């Protein structure tokens, strides 16, 4: 269905479910797919109403937070309705003594940080895409350098409220960090790209803001050296917050960097920075300023963005293969998660770089996923690759969204 074919009764049903429903504008297109309507609910109740109306009329629905990552994943097979959650923008509750915060899905990650910073706390998820919402951050499982010490969304989310495709509201988890009552639905929702249910509210554990921080960076010119430098720090006992590598494409001799972030008490950081500098080798430099490109993806407009994962011993091989394939990679050398950028104007070149990197990352037990890029390039390559457990994933999808109306086709295996 497209804008023209959505019948009037369906339109009316959605319009009566929610105060603000508009015909979609060109800018509302989801990765090139034009929706008919945009609903902007202002409460979780309205989200449920809209989804009930959509269910009654079998409309396909693509949830949207702040719209910063609508080109991630595959273009949806259909999008009758964009469900815009920007109106659910409240930071609901910050219990500083308990180190937890609750926020609505449309709240920006930045708003949450601002709300908790006064108590010298933070939600330990890096803002890798400026302006991103909480819901979108969860749905795409975004992480940055800090993941090395504190993990990712799955390690920080303690409670979640969702609305199902059939309009039923449900919650899981709660307000306490330790809780094993019932299934952990939050983990299933993280990284589900809007295909399982619509997130309306999330609860997180927080971390204290550290008093002092220091980056220690070394320049290196070959992949083996970069691997050695990163490994020396990873296997030492300096407890870095992050170990990052930035590895530009280019011919041999092009320099890259390995950067280590240390946080803690001033004296502690001082001593640890000296240790790390000597582990990184000659030329390592300390700085109070974050290195260029910190917590930012390497790709820009028109590029294809990749996510590469591998076990730690594969770092050198992956860096080597990336450079040979003309892919600029940057990311968490300390955990085995890098992001790559290839120009998006040559689909064949993208395909062959992807093939090469899949082979190398696969050898090191990881995967390569096309995160972002021009829709036509994404249609010509295997965006998600082969993923274990796809049959079970399909069955989970069939239970949560039996009619396949939520963000259909954006996810792994056509889900």
């Amino acid at each position: 269905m497209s804008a023209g074919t959505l019948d009037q009764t369906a339109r009316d049903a959605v319009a009566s479910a929610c105060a603000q429903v508009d015909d979609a504008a060109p800018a509302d297109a989801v990765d090139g797919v034009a929706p008919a309507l945009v609903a902007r609910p202002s409460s979780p109740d309205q989200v449920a109403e809209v989804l009930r109306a959509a269910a009654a009329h079998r409309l396909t629905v693509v949830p949207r937070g702040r719209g910063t990552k609508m080109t991630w994943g595959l273009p949806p097979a259909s999008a009758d309705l964009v469900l815009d959650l920007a109106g659910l923008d409240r930071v609901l509750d910050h219990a500083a003594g308990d180190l937890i915060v609750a926020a609505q899905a449309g709240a920006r990650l930045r708003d949450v940080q601002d709300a908790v910073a006064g108590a010298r706390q933070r939600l330990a998820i890096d803002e890798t895409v400026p302006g991103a919402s909480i819901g979108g951050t969860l749905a795409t499982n975004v992480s940055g350098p800090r993941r090395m010490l504190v993990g990712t969304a799955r390690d920080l989310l303690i409670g979640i409220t969702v609305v199902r495709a059939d309009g039923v509201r449900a919650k899981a988890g709660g307000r306490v960090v330790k809780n094993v009552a019932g299934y952990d639905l939050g983990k299933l929702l993280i990284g589900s790209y809007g295909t399982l249910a619509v997130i309306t509210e999330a609860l997180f554990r927080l971390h204290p803001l550290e008093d002092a921080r220091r980056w220690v960076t070394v320049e290196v010119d070959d992949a083996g050296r970069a691997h050695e430098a990163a490994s020396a720090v990873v296997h030492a006992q300096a407890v870095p917050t992050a170990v990052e590598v930035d590895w530009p494409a280019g011919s041999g001799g092009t320099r890259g960097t390995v950067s280590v972030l240390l946080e803690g008490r001033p004296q502690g950081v001082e001593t640890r920075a000296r240790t790390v500098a000597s582990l990184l080798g000659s030329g390592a430099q300390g700085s109070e300023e974050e290195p260029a490109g910190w917590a930012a993806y390497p790709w820009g407009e028109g590029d294809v963005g990749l996510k590469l994962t591998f076990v730690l011993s594969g770092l050198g091989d992956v860096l080597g293969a990336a450079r040979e394939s003309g892919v600029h990679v940057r990311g968490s050398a300390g955990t085995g998660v890098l992001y790559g950028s290839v120009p998006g104007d040559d689909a064949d070149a993208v395909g062959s770089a992807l093939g090469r990197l899949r082979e190398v990352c696969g050898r090191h037990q990881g995967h390569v996923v096309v995160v972002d890029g021009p829709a036509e390039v994404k249609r010509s390559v295997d965006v998600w690759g082969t993923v274990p457990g796809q049959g079970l994933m399909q069955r989970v999808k069939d239970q949560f969204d039996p009619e396949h109306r939520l963000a259909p086709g954006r996810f792994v295996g056509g889900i």
Partner: protein
Amino acid sequence: MATTELHERSTDHGALAAVERRARELLSREGVISDHQRLRTYECDGLAHYRVTPALVVIPEDAEQLAGVVEACAHNRVPFVARGSGTGLSGGALPHAEGVLVVTSRMRAIREVRPQDQRAVVEPGVINLDVTRAAAPHGYYYAPDPSSQQICSIGGNLAENSGGAHCLKYGFTSNHVLGAELVTPQGEIVEIGGAAPDTPGYDLLGAVVGSEGTLGVVTSATVRLVRLPEEVRTLLVGFETTDHAGAATSAIIAAGILPAAIEMMDALAIEAAEAAVHCNYPAGAGAVLVIELDGAAAEVAAEFDEVERLCRDNGSFEQRVATDPTDRALIWKGRKSAFAAVGRISPDYIVQDGVIPRTALPEVLKAIAELSESSGVRVANVFHAGDGNLHPLVLFDDSVEGAGEAAEKVSGAILDLCIGHGGSITGEHGVGVDKAKYMPRMYDEDDLDTMQLVRCAFDPDNVSNPGKIFPTPRLCGEVPGRHKGVHPLQDAGLAEVF
């Protein structure tokens, strides 16, 4: 307390006989137990007042054997229950009277220890502490450390999402497992997750960890190994009251310090530990805190001074520091033996497991004291103070008429306190059979229904550990809104996209 016999044994012996035949084809002689006397040794887990003799016990040696038995169960609609070491405290491994108990005690190989990748691959029957033992020579360890770590299995840890004293800083099992091989309730062997981070697709592993054996049987796990800290310092601090100890805990957290552990014991728990293991805790303490700091030496030193000061500021009257492993072990001995130690001061006891927001600690402890006072039932408090996970030990004497019931009542009322303060009915011991009835107090019908969608995806026939977690099973056929015939997208000419 009365022994509760669940699931009256009944009917379909044909189906069970078929499963037994298949098991005998697949497994060696010692791997199949059907003798009633021997079956009875498996009748309960760590929560011994629930007892059910299983119809059959199988002890496979590998995933293929295990999958074969599960497949036969699925085919014949015979329920099965996985069991690791049987130390669970919520009746999760309680057998099914007409079903098969699948025991992992012969799947104990540590397949890989790869410090360079910070990973180990282990079979489900491997004992928790053995993973650390295997990793330690390389300078690594496995972080989740339940007090039962010398006996409990990794498979059981996964199923319960077990924690331990150090999960305040290091997290629970779910934070340390990256991949698993799962035998689905249909008997397929499926890989979920992987050794590298962030496997694409739904986080199936996130759903399986903590699912208490209701989504299949884990036959191998890829776990994270953590670098041993450069420095560990353990502090034993005596306070006059639990209020003082609670205030010190809050002050430490408020100062932005994240210790590896902050554990609290009250006077009664200290008395029990003293009687059992002579841990020599500060005399006359109304509460002790065990605080452990670990990490880079320079950082630990700075934090340590501050922790000492904060304890003093909040009324501590004695502080002891342990920096070497022997002294540390002695401090921990009192805490880690606390459950069993209570046996020294009471013939019977219930180990409760509830969670509250940490700031509610003083209020909840006061309410527990009042409950104890008004009912005459003694309660010893041991808990992970840092994260608000309470383990009240409710003491009683089963030979006294009505004492068991009175203790049950107090124990249940403590859970209500937790729920009332926005907490949880279980922080680490699981729901199992014991707390299924409390689930509707924490979650409404739609919440439970939604959780069970996951169950329906994995186990539509409800054969994998049925009767656990959920008070009422969802009928998986009844998917609301499911329609037959042409898919709407097919209708719209978009079906080729799928």
